[in-house]
């Protein structure tokens, strides 16, 4: 009997790192969007920086999803 500890721990590490990273990115994106929402509501600027940051975050998430689809297809 041979337990593949290397594969198990790499699955563990990758799952943990990628999901925490993705969730963090996405949450930051959402935080950026809602900061813009607040800024517009209060009339204090357009929050352009927050929105740009948010879209960068979302783009990174979209890239991760695309890579996921690539993994499924390949």
């Amino acid at each position, binding site marked *: 009997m041979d337990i593949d500890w290397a594969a198990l721990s790499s*699955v*563990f590490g*990758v*799952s943990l790192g990628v999901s925490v990273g993705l969730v963090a990115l996405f*949450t930051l994106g959402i935080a950026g*969007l*809602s*900061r813009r*929402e607040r800024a517009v509501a209060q009339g204090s600027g357009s929050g352009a920086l927050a929105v740009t940051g948010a879209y960068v975050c979302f783009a990174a998430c979209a890239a991760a999803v695309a890579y996921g689809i690539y993994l499924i297809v390949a």
Partner: protein
Amino acid sequence: MESFSLILAIVVITALAFDFTNGFHDTANAMATTISTGALKPKVAVAMSAVLNLVGAFLSVEVANTISKGLVDESGIRPEVIFAALVGAILWNLLTWLVGLPSSSSHALMGGLIGATIASAGVSAVHGGVLITKVLIPAIAAPLVAGIAGLLSTRLTYRLGRKSDGKAAEKGHRAGQIASAGLVSLAHGTNDAQKTMGVITLALITGGALAPGSNPPTWVIVSAGVAIAIGTYLGGWRIIRTMGKGLTDLQPQQGFAAQTSAATAILASSHLGFSLSTTHVVSGSVMGAGLGRKGGVVRWSTATRMFIAWGLTLPAAALVGAGAEAVTRLGDWGTAAVAVFLVASSAAIWKISRREIVDHTNVNGDTPVDGAEEPAGVVTQAMAAVTPPPASPVTEELTATIPAPAPAPVTPATTPPAPAV
């Protein structure tokens, strides 16, 4: 040759039936969190999952090939053995659906195959070491990996997003959940529809209809994809309710964190060659997300029942598979008897399920049985306190029977005779 192709036809139909129960059983994995947090309407969610499962079925035949090429020695297997294995797997899937517990369809299929093989070729035909490395370790690892990932991502999303509210946050969590649920559906289609394709191809090879080493024919791919999509669309609402509401109460942030961790763990494991069951991964990530929120609870009694079901999946399916194999060996009428038994049991389980219908209209409702026994359920306790105890039919019967003896004193026969003068 006539009877030969008949048994093959039976195996193919049974395999497609298994594929259907598989889709039915595993809709919850992709869509339970999406439905319970309200990101998608129940019907829309299952339709989306069905389409993605169908698409996934056409993406590759790699998994199918690992089953039909080399996993088992096809020279020693008769189509009846595969048939018996499928009977065990289908019945276990239907039974767990009836009680609303998520369990791994792959384990059920593996259990059925192991049982039928033992009955056919003896215990030595199964490698114990493979059983531990391929079944036991992943079953323990999957919920831990996904659970810890879900827990940490939930913590993080609450911390980073504590200032986000309003429309933007709501829309964002919805979109994130839908995207990750879509990925899970797609991965499920490529994995599980292909398992059935592999089984059908294996049956066709053992029956001599295909040359050993062939790829699955197109009609096999199409029918397996359609069967799993129909199953997914009809939706195992009972399991969706357990997964989305029964284990813990999910807010949109938690649903998003759970589904993202699940999608990541599934893809990472299948890509790195340590295959984890979709069901185990999603259950783990949902529980992790439940623990990750401040004040969040996991209903451990439901979780314990689910773990017990996981432990029983393989032996139970193996037992049925072995019994079915033993009966098919009696000859053609034995095979017919097993087929009749399968259809009758499935019909009986469906009939029992109609006593308490769970569908898209009440999938997000409370589970009365679970809620009552949970110490954490403050609301249910309060409800139980204010709800008057139901009028029991016994008292009604009593009041109904009380007037009956009333005429008794009137009847002169019962009055003691007056003393004679």
